[in-house]
């Protein structure tokens, strides 16, 4: 990462008369078209006028102010920032895939449909589910789709009074938000002191108005919910379904499957567990899997394998409807397929276990200087509640910002909400012992610095391209376009 801040906007490089594009001649007579004045825009859009070298240099300079997994260690809890293999990128843009129109006849897209079908079968095996749809565009979209599957199932049984979803208070904010979009009310249940679901509290709110219970396992503290099977039985007895939020699937690869734990519906984040790049916020993909008996509720269209071995598209009558025009973020699916093939069953089994080993190693190496509120074996991630020594007044935010000075991305901070100073670390399996040791050493240095010269930590970051931004100023009078800045 470049320490020099590159802060120009492309608009500020614009000079009238420059251009960066070239278009082919099409051999047709020009200017044949006259449209009524009232249907045309009054003036040209204010877009930059720049030449090609300027465009390239501008965005490359901008990129040097960014930090990615390819730049350095990115222990962002709950986000599974593992290495994104390069072969996946190559496989995602092959012209015979990238050039396909989504409404081409199925006879001309058999390879694409096979890729989709193969990936959905692989995910079904990994999740212990009967069938997956790959149509949802992201994890949150998958949650929404999964909850719609659940509502469609209840509706098909004429059970219309199930309007609530139970969510543990440690859940990601997306869970309750998705439930609300799906027209369901949210009931939060408290967690036990060890961060796991309070089974008794859950049982107390479980009645015939509950459509589903959403769980993440391991949960957001990185703790495996050992009583999951018991919870599933209880939920099923009450006539509700179990939803698995796949955000934390990574450590379970090769070890245990959500379907076997008693979950009925689940989503996976291809951009977490299956290494597709996060792209600064997307595109991701949130495939949704269901147990046997729920397949027909999945969104349309579905990809099916015909008796003759060919692939087709089908529309199911019982389907919840469509959550996308076509088959979702196809190029992201290709990357995930490439990843699963590269790892194979043997590599996937290693991935989960090494993720867990790396997390426990970091946890055990720092527990004397950071407060470990839940002292148990973790899975892929764990949570510190700030520094062990609270007397310096150095906060989790300060520690996070100081890490930036040392060339690391910060862990997830102030989530989960169960602790005041949450610092959530997820190293992933693709980090070497040396990388972890260096990180551990820096974390220990920061703890020592917090005790010896707390002001240095509190005023961090010191050597990032820009300093701490004024968030209040941004929110008070929002300037959200270049044109706002010109006013």
């Amino acid at each position, binding site marked *: 990462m470049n320490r020099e801040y590159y802060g120009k906007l492309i608009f500020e490089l614009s000079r009238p008369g420059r251009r960066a594009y070239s278009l082919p001649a099409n051999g047709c007579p020009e200017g044949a078209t006259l449209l009524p004045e009232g249907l045309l825009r009054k003036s040209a859009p204010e877009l930059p006028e720049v030449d090609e070298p300027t465009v390239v240099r501008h965005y490359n300079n901008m990129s040097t102010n960014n930090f990615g997994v390819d730049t350095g260690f990115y222990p962002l809890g709950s986000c599974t920032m593992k290495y994104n293999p390069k072969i996946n990128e190559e496989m995602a843009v092959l012209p015979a895939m990238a050039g396909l129109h989504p409404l081409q006849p199925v006879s001309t897209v058999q390879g694409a449909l096979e890729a989709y079908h193969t990936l959905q079968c692989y995910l079904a095996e990994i999740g212990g589910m009967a069938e997956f749809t790959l149509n949802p565009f992201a994890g949150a979209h998958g949650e929404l789709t999964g909850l719609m599957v659940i509502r469609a199932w209840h509706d098909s049984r004429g059970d219309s009074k199930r309007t609530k979803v139970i969510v543990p208070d440690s859940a990601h904010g997306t869970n309750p938000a998705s439930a609300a979009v799906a027209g369901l009310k949210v009931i939060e249940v408290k967690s036990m002191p060890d961060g796991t679901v309070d089974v008794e509290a859950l049982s107390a709110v479980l009645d015939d108005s509950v459509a589903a219970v959403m769980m993440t396992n391991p949960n957001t503290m990185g703790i495996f919910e050992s009583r999951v099977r018991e919870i599933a039985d209880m939920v099923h007895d009450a006539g509700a379904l179990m939803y698995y939020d796949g955000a934390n699937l990574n450590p379970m690869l090769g070890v245990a499957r959500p379907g076997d734990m008693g979950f009925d519906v689940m989503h996976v984040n291809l951009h977490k567990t299956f290494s597709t790049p996060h792209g600064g916020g997307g595109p991701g993909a949130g495939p949704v899997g269901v147990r046997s008996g729920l397949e027909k509720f999945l969104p349309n269209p579905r990809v099916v394998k015909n008796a003759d071995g060919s692939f087709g598209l089908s529309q199911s009558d019982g389907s919840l409807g469509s959550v996308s025009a076509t088959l979702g973020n196809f190029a992201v699916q290709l990357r995930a397929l490439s990843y699963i093939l590269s790892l194979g069953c043997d590599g996937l089994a290693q991935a989960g276990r090494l993720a867990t080993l790396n997390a426990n190693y970091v946890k055990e190496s720092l527990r004397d200087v950071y407060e470990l509120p839940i002292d148990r074996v973790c899975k892929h991630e764990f949570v510190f509640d700030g520094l062990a020594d609270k007397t310096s007044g150095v906060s989790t935010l300060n520690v996070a910002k100081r890490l930036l000075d040392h060339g690391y991305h910060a862990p997830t901070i102030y989530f989960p909400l169960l602790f005041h100073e949450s610092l959530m670390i997820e190293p992933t399996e693709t980090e070497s012992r040396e990388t972890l040791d260096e990180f551990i050493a820096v974390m220990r240095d920061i703890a020592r610095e917090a005790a010896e010269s707390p002001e240095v930590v509190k005023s961090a970051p010191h050597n990032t391209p820009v300093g701490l931004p004024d*968030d*209040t100023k941004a*929110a*008070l009078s929002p300037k959200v376009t270049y044109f706002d800045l010109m006013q």
Partner: protein
Amino acid sequence: MSKIYYSETHEYVKVDGNIGLIGISDYAQHALGNVVYVDMPEVGDDIEAGEDFGAVESVKAASDLIAPVSGAVVEINEHLIDNPRLINEDALSNWIIKVELTAPDELDSLMDEAGYAEFVSNQ
């Protein structure tokens, strides 16, 4: 002479006759931090005791405004549109909406100034 009442969700209503000025308590503004936006209803809207009628936002938090009493909105504090931080400066003078009370009996279930002070001290 107006009298002030508080709810457990930290809204106040200052009542003069059948007119009430509703805002958030000093304790609430302090807990929220720098207010950057106040989401207000429109004049003419009806609000119902216990239901939310808007929200107060800081940079990284948002707090729903829960109506302490029912009524019809007759005025909103337009100063807050351009300068929401007035709430931080003086929450009690910078009320958010003015309502015409439709169920003055509801005031009986609210706390008076001393009651609220005690309530807050137990928070």
